[in-house]
């Protein structure tokens, strides 16, 4: 296969893997957070805050991956 084609393929697969990873991560985060705030609604605000921070950090890692995928397609 041509190197350019490989780069596009890698970018596509990479974007999919990033989406899977971020999905699993945020899913793992949001589910228990909702459960916790349903059990103890009085700390729901705190849980939401912590959840958003963790989700943002998680998303940051996913976005690093996305940028690399984008660079692969743009520079190929």
């Amino acid at each position, binding site marked *: 296969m041509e190197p350019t084609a490989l780069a596009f393929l890698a970018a596509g697969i990479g974007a999919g893997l990033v989406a899977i990873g971020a999905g699993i991560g945020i899913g793992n985060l949001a589910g228990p957070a909702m459960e916790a705030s349903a059990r103890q609604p009085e700390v729901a605000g705190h849980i939401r805050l912590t959840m*958003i921070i963790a989700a943002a*950090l998680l998303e940051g890692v996913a*976005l690093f991956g996305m940028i690399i995928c984008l660079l692969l397609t743009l520079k190929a």
Partner: protein
Amino acid sequence: MALNANIRYRQIVLLLAAGCVFLGPRLAHAADEEGKLDAVAHTADGVYLDFAPFGAVELPRIFLRSDPWGLDVFPSTRSALLSERYVMEHKEDGHAEILHGEALRDAIDHHEHLYAKPKPAQGTLVLDLSITRHLVFGVLAALIVVAIFLGLARRYRRPEDRVAAPRGIFQNMFEALVIFVRDEIAKPCVGPRYREFLPFLLTAFMFILCANLMGLAPYLGAATSNVAVTFTLAAFTFVAGQRKGTKAYWTHLFWPPGVPLPVKFILAPIELVSLIAKHFALALRLFANMMSGSLLILSLIGIIFTINVLFGSLAAALVAPVGVAFTLFITFIKIAVAFIHAFVFTLLSAIFFGMALEEDEHHEEETSAEEQPALAG
């Protein structure tokens, strides 16, 4: 009630249909002109303001060149090229040629010069300081924020006004935002010295929010979808935080207590890298989120044209309502994203400030257990 809901449903369908009509011809035109729709170029920075279908306004070009040194200022790219002091190349089949005279005029008529990188006819280009689209939008966002808050600040001049209830929609809205930043972001995350950082946090929040929301307005763009803008914001966070860093914080960074001596030399660089990576991620997160929203919208609209080319116009007509409906949905998501990412940037900045302000061991444990959310990386 049922009738009312029915009418609303019909209105939404009508709006969607109207959206299809409105979006169709204009983007088809954009796609025709270049032969292909380049989603990245549309969201990227540029040296012109696009007011399609009414045309484009070119922005001033400022170049710093050497041999001989000089600063060249032109009111537009067109005038820079027509003065013959700057030239553009036309690339065809991997072969680049410099355009002159008639060919240059022809290229300008086809708006080719808007995407070209002009080079000086004599000497070499050192810096391209041209005013770009994102710079204009960024300054505009800053001016809007300044105008709003200078006006509002006047209402709090007298001491008795500060305890009085806010009057009017405008003041109520922004007081709620300011109180939100103070009570939900600054107080819990920075700690007892939150007042020192409140001006920075409020400015960052309001500027990012304003810039993000400008990305949703027609003919405007989000300055925060430019990586230079977000890195500058993150650099401000970095400097503002490190400037106030306590002795305990610097000791933790370069001479971590409670570990054997050889480990200290390993830990210090790791801590330093993680400190920089945190701020790097802060910039990249905001940039990528604002960028990806506009890319997604353009891709969803672009899929109609892709299908038009691949499967014919009937398939495209069937896909168009779906594409537009998804675009509408993504636009609503983008409104939420504009607020969330202004919030997230400010929140993470506040957490970094809180880290820089940590005092001794005992105090740190106390605040982290009670107030500071758990955080890694």
